[in-house]
């Protein structure tokens, strides 16, 4: 297993290499002149050129690429064009809150999604099913920022239960993760339901009942674990959605995360930040999928024991 993980991590290297190339050229493809943006509206032509030279943007693009890559290999993500701070420094404060936000969203979405999905499947075509599925379909049908704004109005302004934004403590994570996780929760609830329904038709469920097992044993012990296999895969893929969805949520909740930084950096053509962050997203995504694969193999003994 460990060997496998190490192998997978090594396999990441060429992918990330390609990704970094793509990102680099992609970033530079975006129209807009960072030198001009750094210099400001009232800057003269000469000022812009001075800044361009300062930022190394006057060199041919391949030369910039070589510099970028060689820095990257030395673990240097570069310096933000906009703030003049090392990209690392800009990430340090934002990275963990982003991760927490994503994780909290994922965790509650998983727990609630599984619960709703399970109840819906077990009480198929009865009111818990209808209730669960109405919740779930609504969850994927609401525009995220709309939901966020509503939550602020209700829970911050009217009730005063949670702060409207920022990160002061765990309370600050509640509304953003509710907003961010809603879609995934719904998705997972639906997947759990259909997966569980499929599993409940399986022969081994009948076997379990024929053994004289209670439903309260058959469902969680025999059915749910089998149903989790597709659910986990979906959850992994949804992680990408979380990373992206956070952009909107971070905007609504003035949450100091990575998504907002990326938007700002794109607006400012802050190449080093965009590149570093895209790379980071790719790494996260690949790592998450590695975790999913491992989890998957844990859930599915066929994969675990394949020889």
């Amino acid at each position, binding site marked *: *297993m460990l060997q*496998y993980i190490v192998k997978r991590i090594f396999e990441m290297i060429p992918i990330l290499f390609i990704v970094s190339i793509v990102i680099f050229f992609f970033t530079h493809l975006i129209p807009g002149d960072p030198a001009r943006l750094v210099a400001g509206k009232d800057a003269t032509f000469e000022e812009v050129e001075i800044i361009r030279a300062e930022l190394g943007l006057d060199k041919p693009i391949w030369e910039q690429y070589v510099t970028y890559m060689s820095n990257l290999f030395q673990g240097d993500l570069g310096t933000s064009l906009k703030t003049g701070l090392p990209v690392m420094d800009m990430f340090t404060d934002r990275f963990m809150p982003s991760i927490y936000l994503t994780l909290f969203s994922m965790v509650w979405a998983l727990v609630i999604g599984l619960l709703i999905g399970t109840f819906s499947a077990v009480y198929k075509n009865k009111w818990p099913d209808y209730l669960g599925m109405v919740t779930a379909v609504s969850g994927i049908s609401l525009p995220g920022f709309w939901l966020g704004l509503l939550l602020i109005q209700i829970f911050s302004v009217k009730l005063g239960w949670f702060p409207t934004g920022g990160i002061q403590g765990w309370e600050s994570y509640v509304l953003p993760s509710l907003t961010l996780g809603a879609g995934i929760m719904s998705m997972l609830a639906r997947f759990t339901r259909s997966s569980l329904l499929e599993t409940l038709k399986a022969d081994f469920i009948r076997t379990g009942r024929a053994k004289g097992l209670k439903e309260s044993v058959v469902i969680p012990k025999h059915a749910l674990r089998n149903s989790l296999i597709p659910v986990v895969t979906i959850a992994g893929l949804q992680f990408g959605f979380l990373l992206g969805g956070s952009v909107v949520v971070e905007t609504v909740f003035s949450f100091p995360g990575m998504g907002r930084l990326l938007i700002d950096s794109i607006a400012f053509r802050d190449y080093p930040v965009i590149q570093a962050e895209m790379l980071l997203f790719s790494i996260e995504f690949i790592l998450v999928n590695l975790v999913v694969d491992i989890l998957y193999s844990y859930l599915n003994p*066929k*994969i675990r*024991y*394949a*020889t």
Partner: protein
Amino acid sequence: MSNALLKVTNLKKSFSIPNGMFGKKKSLKAVHDVSFIIPEGKTFSLVGESGCGKSTTGRLISRLIQPSEGEIWIDGEEISQKKEAHLKAIRKKVQMIFQDPYASLNPRMKVRDIVGEPLVIHTNLTKAERNKQVSEMLEVVGLSEYHADRYAHEFSGGQRQRIGIARALIMKPKLIIADEPVSALDVSIQSQILNLLKDLQREFHLTYLFISHDLSVVEHISDHIGVMYLGTIVETGPKEVIFSNPQHPYTKALLSSIPIPDPRLRRERIILQGDLPSPVNPPTGCRFHTRCPVATDICKVTEPPVKPGVTPDHFVACHLVDY
């Protein structure tokens, strides 16, 4: 043997299969050195247990997959390594009937289009001409024009298998490869189809490669039989020899395993111990030695040669048989 329509020599096929999530690819020897001949107008059957390579052999001959090694001569033409583009002519001569009458017909096509599809591919006939031929062919297999505008799933298993047969026959092929054409059917329907296949053979002078795991069906339909075990043919010969004077211990065991539908004939059987070994790691020496009730030391190390059997067209691959 004269007039061999199909001649297969030393056919081999291995698949590389993924080894779970955590391992390298492995090679699975599905077919391992298979040779046989089918004279024109005769039926040759391949029998054996699940996974022994019967279907793979059939698919190799129809060139749905490419052999790793060996030769396939059909009607005097060697086709084992031909490129897809050059196979069209062969595809006219060789047709297949599949085991699963539900899966082998496209559920979204009408019977007329299913049966007529070979005509679209191989001929320039007009629609009307095609329809005429389709109707004729439906009559031949015991269906009628009246069924032509329906979808496959409106038919019962037996009827579907007839549609499949009609599709196979419409190009007037020489060789028909029938891969377990009756295994999925109820006994009452199975006999209908077996009877039909026999009739058609006589009428159109067809040559059959018949694949089955059911020895009683095989006995009923074939002229020659090849018994397969784990990718190789262990015994081949005329049906009479195989059934009345089997030589290979596996053939004997197989024959004795069949439950006979007559309570008075309950008997002591040879019950083979253990399971079929995996074709990924086939046993050394004689592939059957792990389950063979009479295996000796040599069987564990040396692969048995193919030896002539009781009649000129009978061969056995067993160390312990000598003629």
